[in-house]
């Protein structure tokens, strides 16, 4: 054994001698503070379903809302997918509303940063603060007609977390509470119906999960009793029902449909696919025909497209090879394409993520890479994608805060200098 090998062999012992390990006298105090916070719900962790193990680096949290921001994320991501065409905003309209679904003109991109709401014009790069001040505001999303911006306002953290859903004109004027302040509790998800008349919320009160629908005109709250724990949901495009991810007693998940009044509960997905662990977003296409979703099983992530009219899986983009994963779908407003993320494992410690765009009918061989191949050493979702309202480009964001805009015609892409916080960016739809 040479000196170098002895060095390697003994360095650990030497370091132990140097540090003189001993039980820390501050342990009890540190432990007490650690367990005083609330744990994140398991399903909010991508690592629980992501086929690659290692992940550790924390998500950036809003300074004003340290641990709770994750809980807020649930609400907000909900709102992001909420498809909120606010009918009640007729008196507040400052511009011609865009159609709630289908092609529209590209508007501003909204995001939150340090508790304030900003918009950025992707054409000029102009950034505007639209809701500022000392309040903790985050996770903005535009109404489906593009006339309003909605976001979450954290009002109180202790002893109970209290939030309000706020609404304002798209330029930040006429700010008001859409939903009066309420105790968030273990809030799983909330969303407005596409016509803006109903507000659905799933939470756990005193450990009992519940789903309820609030009529915004009357304030009446209708509880929906289900034999399944609801974690996330999407309003159907016609606003008559909810598609939700539910977990049964064995914590196995599936996607279900239920009418807004609690009738016609039925399961949409077959648990046999991917062992029944359905994760990530499950968007509905603009024409309401398709439901995209991802399922995890057998150490891989699979992408599916379900035809809601026939209840058949009309497209299944299989995992191309061992060690790869495909998921996180998004539908184009022209109802012709689907975007998703392809993951691969080039090394044991890195993950490569690539946005792909293919035909909505699901031929995997026709899908083409779009935007940069991104390496993510510690994974969360890695990348997320959304089509521009006019369906000509793809907005790609990484969890590291990078943003790219890819032209779907030419295949070129360029970075966008957009502030990116832990919530997804929201792209405003405008009247064509």
């Amino acid at each position: 054994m040479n000196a170098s090998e002895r060095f390697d062999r003994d360095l650990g012992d030497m370091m132990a001698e140097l540090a003189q390990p001993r039980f820390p006298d501050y342990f009890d105090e540190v432990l007490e503070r650690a367990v005083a916070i609330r744990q994140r719900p398991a399903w909010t962790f991508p690592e629980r379903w992501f086929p690659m193990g290692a992940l550790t680096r924390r998500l950036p949290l809003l300074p004003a809302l340290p641990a709770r921001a994750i809980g807020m994320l649930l609400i907000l991501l909900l709102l992001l997918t909420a498809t909120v065409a606010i009918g009640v905003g007729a008196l507040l309209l400052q511009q011609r509303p865009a159609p709630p679904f289908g092609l529209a003109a590209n508007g501003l991109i909204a995001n939150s940063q340090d508790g304030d709401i900003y918009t950025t014009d992707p054409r000029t790069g102009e950034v505007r603060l639209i809701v500022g001040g000392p309040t903790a505001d985050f996770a903005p999303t535009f109404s489906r007609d593009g006339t309003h911006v909605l976001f979450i306002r954290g009002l109180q953290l202790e002893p109970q977390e209290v939030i309000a859903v706020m609404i304002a004109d798209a330029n930040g004027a006429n700010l008001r509470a859409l939903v009066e302040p309420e105790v968030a509790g273990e809030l799983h998800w909330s969303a407005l119906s596409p016509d803006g008349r109903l507000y659905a919320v799933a939470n756990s009160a005193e450990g009992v999960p519940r789903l309820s629908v609030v009529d915004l005109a009357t304030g009446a709250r209708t509880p929906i009793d289900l034999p399944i724990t609801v974690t996330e949901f999407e309003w159907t495009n016609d606003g008559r029902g909810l598609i939700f991810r539910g977990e049964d007693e064995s914590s196995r998940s599936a996607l279900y449909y239920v009418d807004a009044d609690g009738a016609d509960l039925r399961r949409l997905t077959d648990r046999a696919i991917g062992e029944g662990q359905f994760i990530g977003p499950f968007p509905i296409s603009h024409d309401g025909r398709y439901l995209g979703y991802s399922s995890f099983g057998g150490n891989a992530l699979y992408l599916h497209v379900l035809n809601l009219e026939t209840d058949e899986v009309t497209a299944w983009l299989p995992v191309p090879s061992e060690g790869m994963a495909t998921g996180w779908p998004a539908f184009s407003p022209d109802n012709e394409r689907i975007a998703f993320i392809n993951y691969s494992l080039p090394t044991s410690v890195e993950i490569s993520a690539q946005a792909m765009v293919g035909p909505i009918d699901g031929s995997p061989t026709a899908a083409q890479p779009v935007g940069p191949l991104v390496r993510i050493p510690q994974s969360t979702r890695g990348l997320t994608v959304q089509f521009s309202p006019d369906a000509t480009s793809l907005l790609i964001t990484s969890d590291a805060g990078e943003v790219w805009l890819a032209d779907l015609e030419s295949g070129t892409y360029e970075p966008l200098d957009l502030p990116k916080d832990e919530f997804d960016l929201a792209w405003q739809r405008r009247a064509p």
Partner: protein
Amino acid sequence: MDQRILVERARGGDRDAFAVLARAAATRLDAAARLILLDREHARDAVQEALTRAWRDLPGLRDPDRFDAWLYRLLSNAAIDEARRRRRRVVEVEITAIDVSDHDDPIATFADRDALDRALTGLSPEHRALVVLHYYLGLSLPEAAAALGISLGAAKSRLHRAIGSLRRSIVETVDPALPAARGGQP
């Protein structure tokens, strides 16, 4: 009780189970944090942050058998974050003199902890974290690389430089007359 059972219970919100896990790891967490940060108070802050994140994020841990490595990752990240925040180094690691007279090869014995202490001070917190994860906490190099969010190639390169620097520092400290190449440094 089996660690896996404890992790599963803690993952379900059992604070007592988490306390058992944290208590079992506390000594190594504290020592590792002090080695990375070279400061007792900062180390305490890093351990606090690591345990807080561990409790909060434990429901996301897929494999209970990976709890220790996962916790070490949290600790190293918390320590590096702490170092970046503080941007100052106060060496408080206790040093105990050891007689090195019986050893004819200062590199082979590594008996001079003061030399190692000074050598560690010369490394960045990121390099110290890698050395501590790999040599003190026993993580494999891929595991340590994943913990620090760097590629395996970067970890190898970084470790190569760190060990070379440590070796040179120790040689020069223990016996300035010795040629640096004696330790087989890069």
